[in-house]
């Protein structure tokens, strides 16, 4: 029994599942403590997951589609964080890269050539390129001049936010909070999805997300580029001594990392909105991506699952409110999950304690 428990705690995937369960358990207790029925919370979550409303027995596929749509930026920003983390970097700048991607997509949507398909493709490409530049600069500074990526990415988040405001205020029809409507050719909506999901916002972005997950997995696990990056992330000194171009690895990884977040910005801009937004604050997808990657252990599959969970929680918020459950509980559960992830080392300590107890028992028996 003991070795199996040990294996469980050593398996990162199992710990992530455990952590999520713990987060929900504590969340349940909190809901009960404020005098609400926790069952309603789970009803809301179930409805967001399956589209089925237990209370009135009605099915609406739209909820499933919205959960998927919400999870797209979470997953992409999780990939952004995860990619850098695997190379040993802490990219807090997902938010800035996301904002720059969003801004670029909006600009191209409003100013670009209105040719079907090409238009939105150009906008997405722009979002990816600007995101990778915004991240790549950080990688370059880190690799060449040892500038801490944590500090530079945090600062660039604010640069991105205000730069975005300056740019978007110059766009056609800009007021203090929005621009003119996007032309049809720039939108990434999917008529088929809208038809089968009761006009949900689910759009072609989900294909781009799925492609990104594959790209992430492919680069990391299959290519020699990813091999060099993983070696750099695990042991920079050994990688360098073995001739792996560490500086290149770091710069490229930050650029790729930024590309994921930039794409997330582009998808949200042209998939979920009909007009360009002049941001007054951050959307926080970039920051939530940090949690998503940590819960998902920075693997392609894990990050996807964690992103879906975060999308589910976000979509369940409105449903919870309609069932008198404060929607803030979803933030609390997210926060708890992150805290429990951070407590992983405590779990290991607990395991050691159990081992010791077991040992003493064995000795006592003999």
């Amino acid at each position: 029994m003991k070795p199996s428990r040990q294996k469980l705690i050593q398996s990162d995937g199992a710990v992530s599942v455990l952590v999520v369960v713990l987060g929900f358990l504590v969340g349940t207790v909190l809901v009960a403590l404020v005098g609400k029925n926790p069952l309603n919370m789970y009803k809301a979550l179930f409805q967001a997951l399956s589209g089925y409303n237990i209370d009135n027995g009605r099915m609406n596929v739209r909820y499933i589609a919205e959960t998927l749509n919400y999870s797209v930026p979470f997953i992409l920003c999780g990939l952004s964080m995860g990619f850098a983390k695997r190379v040993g970097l802490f990219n807090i700048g997902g938010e800035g890269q996301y904002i720059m991607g969003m801004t670029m997509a909006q600009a191209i949507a409003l100013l670009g050539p209105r040719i079907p398909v090409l238009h939105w493709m150009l906008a997405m490409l722009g979002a990816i390129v600007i995101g990778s530049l915004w991240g790549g600069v950080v990688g370059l500074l880190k690799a060449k001049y040892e500038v801490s990526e944590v500090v530079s990415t945090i600062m660039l988040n604010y640069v991105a936010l205000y730069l975005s405001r300056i740019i978007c205020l110059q766009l056609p029809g800009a007021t203090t909070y929005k621009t003119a409507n996007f032309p049809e050719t720039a939108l990434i909506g999917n008529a088929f999805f809208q038809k089968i999901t009761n006009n949900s916002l689910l759009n072609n972005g989900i294909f781009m997300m799925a492609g990104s997950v594959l790209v992430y997995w492919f680069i990391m696990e299959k290519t020699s580029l990813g091999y060099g990056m993983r070696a750099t992330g695990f042991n920079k000194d050994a990688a360098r001594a073995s001739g792996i171009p560490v500086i290149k690895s770091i710069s490229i990884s930050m650029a790729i990392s930024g590309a994921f977040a930039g794409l997330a910005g582009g998808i949200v801009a042209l998939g979920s909105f009909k007009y360009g937004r002049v941001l007054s604050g951050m959307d926080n997808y970039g920051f939530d991506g940090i949690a998503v990657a940590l819960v998902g252990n920075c693997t392609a599959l894990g990050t996807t699952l964690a992103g879906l969970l975060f999308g589910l929680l976000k979509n369940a918020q409105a449903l919870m409110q309609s069932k008198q459950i404060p929607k803030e509980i979803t933030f609390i559960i997210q926060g708890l999950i992150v805290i429990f992830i951070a407590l992983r080392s405590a779990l290991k300590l607990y395991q050691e304690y159990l081992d010791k107890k077991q040992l003493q028992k064995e000795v006592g028996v003999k």
Partner: protein
Amino acid sequence: MVSEYAIEMMNITKTFPGVVANDKVTLQVRHQEIHALLGENGAGKSTLMSILFGSYSADSGLILLDGRPVEIKNPNVATALGIGMVHQHFKLVQNYTVTENIVLGMEPTKGRLLDMKSAREHVARLSSQYALKVDPDSLVEDITVGQQQRVEILKTLYRNANIIIFDEPTAVLTPQEIDELMDILKKLRSEGKTIVLITHKLKEIKEVADRCTVLRRGRCIGTVEVKDVSEQDLAEMMVGRAVKFEIEKPEQQPGRVMLSLKNLQVADQNGTMRVKDVSLDVHEGEIVGIAGVDGNGQSELLGAITGLLPIAGGSVLLDGKPIENLSIRQRIEEGLGYIPEDRKKYGVVGEFTIAENTALKNYYRDAYRKRMGILDYEAMNQEAENLIKQFDIRSAEGAKTTAGSLSGGNQQKVVVAREISLSPKVLVVAQPTRGLDVGAIEYIRKRIIAEREKGRAILLVSFELDEIMNLCDRIATISKGRIVAVNKQNEVTEYDIGLMMAGSKKEAL
């Protein structure tokens, strides 16, 4: 004293899941003797001592101190019973002073206030009584490793230890510091302390120990009077078969110059010149050793050759071609192999499998590449399985075992396998047998000699004179960043080199 023995550990058995670490081991240590506990890595020495120190409890068996049965539940009980332990990895607070470290946890107080003055006096008194020279007011981070070890010894003495366990105490020391430690051990014995010395270095046992208990694979092989046995006898008891110390090295004519250092200058990160005007040639089929005390410019010299450090002047030629401005990867492709001193830091990626580690330097080449930069993991695993067989790497899951889970000797074999499999023209080797057990040392040395026979040019840096004398054709002695002299191995004695290492002899012999 009631009993003849200070410590008696009778029939100690200790199992871990899947392993019997100690199988009915009996250890009897007399009062005031230095008792060596000898065995290869994994023989159960450390487990036995951890039981004595209370870090583990035995499954069965009995511990007696001076004839009195005791139950040592945890290290605090051990301390109260007068047992102290000097760990291999020191447990010191870097930014505390020597005195603060020693009294930590048992600070003398006056009323409710710390009484550091009397603490300092106490430490100074102990330090002079046992000839443990160390400045009580220095910060631990400012003193040498040898001095830090003395602080650890003082910690046990401050806690009134009568029995002191030393866990591989010389693993981290320079030859000079080892000599000093040997004197300290003798002094402790003459002051009435009982000492258990865990080691796998036979020379040290012959030098200081009175008796020696040998463990092999968790079993007690026997206890001998050290003066009655030779190093060879001890080695055979430890390994279970005859061991060759002197490796046979066929006579061989060196070929043309493969590695040439010309007036090399290297500065460290603070800009201090650490390698000064070093010129040295290494020929095909020749092993040239760099002898010297740690910290005399060896690591900077290695860094300059391998490309880890920039050079400040001079030139490095590999097969006649200057390489000092090439990247690390370009140097590797030119035929430079490197077995680094710190294998955990520079040699292997612990989280990677053996296969990923053996491919670390050539993963991007065609042999492991399919289209579009896709890695051929299958080819990688296959090659690794070959190397595992060829180099006798012991692993749980073959090529897919993570390198971090291997023992030190097997990790080193992974590094050696990788470097040799790349067929380098020049092989730079640093401290290749550091921290390894006798069997692994023998194996690695044989492999290096075999490379020499293949006509590789080998540059060996080692702090162990034995190793240098054993392996090298020519020996360059380095002191304060300068090559003091280059001698043929058969024209120089260890004694001469020792003198040159200390910098006392300036001209070539």
